[in-house]
């Protein structure tokens, strides 16, 4: 009797979970994979093939953008980590009492606005008629309007801005739990700043570093608004090409293939990151 009741409750709890995972995650992704291998021969006949993937490798525009997006995302993630670490360290270890809470909340400010609003804010600052340009002219440092938008630097500024929150929060959480005696012991044993950082602080903060990096990398790789609105003609982003295939060209097969490739790239880099740092997905995300 008891076991049949617990069996029933297990299934009652399991059903919504399975419906969600199967209907919204597994089946759609399998279908995307299937469609990416379909070749449309005429309007109503379909054959199997790898034409879409061949297109990707033969058209240099596709794979160049792919590589560019991956490299720039890695760079952005690294930059975000470097910028966020001193801030997280200050909040977790140096600030006390009220100021600690206030600084932490201040880091959450960008989250009050959506990515679109944040990007829009940067456009107002950086464009030719924007604030920075006006200020520089008022100071007399430049003669005419300066265009600071529509280049890779602008894109990276915007992407780092979007990612910072997701880097600072896990870093503060792990650094907060660190025992300061470890750091003191490091100094007492004759370690310099560099040694203490490398041998004690970074290994301790590794779960936070990995989880922050994974989230920031995923967000950056999959972002659309920031590169489209802030990037120039030459700074295409891979998500843009997926959108183009689906929305302007109605070429679902090609779009699905590009989607699968993006998914493979992101899974591969997340997996590598976990392997190299010796962490597990469960530990850093759950």
């Amino acid at each position, binding site marked *: 009797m008891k076991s049949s009741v617990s069996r029933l409750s297990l299934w009652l709890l399991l059903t919504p*979970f399975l419906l969600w995972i199967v209907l919204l995650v597994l089946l*759609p992704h399998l*279908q995307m994979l299937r469609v990416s291998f379909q070749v449309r021969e005429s309007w*109503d006949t379909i054959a199997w093939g790898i034409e879409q993937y061949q297109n990707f490798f033969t058209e240099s525009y596709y794979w160049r953008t792919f590589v560019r997006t991956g490299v720039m995302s890695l760079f952005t993630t690294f930059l975000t980590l470097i910028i966020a670490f001193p801030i997280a360290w200050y909040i977790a270890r140096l600030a006390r009492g009220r100021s600690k809470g206030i600084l932490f909340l201040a880091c959450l400010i960008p989250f009050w*606005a959506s990515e679109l609003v944040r990007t829009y*804010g940067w456009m*107002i600052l950086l464009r030719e*008629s924007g*604030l920075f340009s006006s200020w520089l002219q008022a100071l007399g440092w430049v003669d005419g309007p300066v265009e600071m938008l529509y280049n890779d630097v602008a894109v990276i500024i915007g992407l780092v801005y979007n990612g910072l929150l997701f880097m600072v929060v896990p870093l503060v959480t792990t650094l907060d739990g660190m025992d300061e005696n470890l*750091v003191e012991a490091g100094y007492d044993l004759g370690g310099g700043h560099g040694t203490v950082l490398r041998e004690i602080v970074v290994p301790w903060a590794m779960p936070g570093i990995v989880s922050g990096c994974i989230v920031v990398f995923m967000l950056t790789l999959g972002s659309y608004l920031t590169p489209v609105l802030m990037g120039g003609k030459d700074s295409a982003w891979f998500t843009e090409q997926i959108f183009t295939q689906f929305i302007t060209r109605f070429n679902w097969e090609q779009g699905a293939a590009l989607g699968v490739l993006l998914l493979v790239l992101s899974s591969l880099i997340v997996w590598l990151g976990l392997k190299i740092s010796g962490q597990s997905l469960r530990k850093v995300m759950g």
Partner: protein
Amino acid sequence: MIRSVPRSRLFDSLYLAYLVAFFVYLALPLLVTAVFAFNDAPFPSLPWKGFTLDWYFADGSDGRTGLFHDDGLLTALWVSAKIAFWVTLVSVGLGCVNAVLFERIQFRGKEFLYLLMLLPLVIPGVILGVSILVFYSGMANDMSAAWGIELDLFRPGMTLVVMGQVTFIATLSTLVIAARLRKFDPQLEEAALNLGATPLVAWFTVTLPWLLPSIFGAAAMAFLMSFENFNTTVMLTGSDTPLTVALFNRLREGSTPVLNAVALLLMVGSALLALLVMGRSSR
């Protein structure tokens, strides 16, 4: 560099300067967006022409249409609110069930299912949108072509947007609620059962009240994330465009201070929601 290790003056002031620069960097874009919602000029840039509330209240008679008279934006706002409501409801419901499943019940294959649960977090939002579009909208197309059955539900539109957003927001709300359930002392529930409560009564009178702060937190987070989402939404939206997509389309045509007005409204709304939830949970 901890408090007990002496630091030099120079280092301290450099560190402080870095902190200040960092927070200026964080605040500046949002600040200028907010300020230019009140500039009395048709374009959000310097010079400052004086304070006006036109970008909220102008009724279009003098060539300016304020946000509260802009039917396109107001409709989009309403669409977003409806989507966010359903997403919140479904994600928080799923989050509660999943939290109990993973924190309280032992069964075979739990580790594997937990990893599956985390999966949507490591899939880019665009791909979530694309895959749901391909599966459901493709199914609707095939059904229509083969048997003439019209599954309008699965055409791009509000239902698909809700489904796409639930995919990853449910994971986040599960994590928030499960974290709280992990801290719950099961003895409290056992005490209720010993005192004669049925399991269902014990759940509603003891466990659920304990979870409430996390449920409110998860709901606020779900609502905000749904409202702000663009990448998944844009792939799945039909003719009834939600706010972020409508704003994006406007922005491509050119920027006007009305966009600043909407942005400020959104920021104030999110801040109020966040404060409300924090106020509740700290009590």
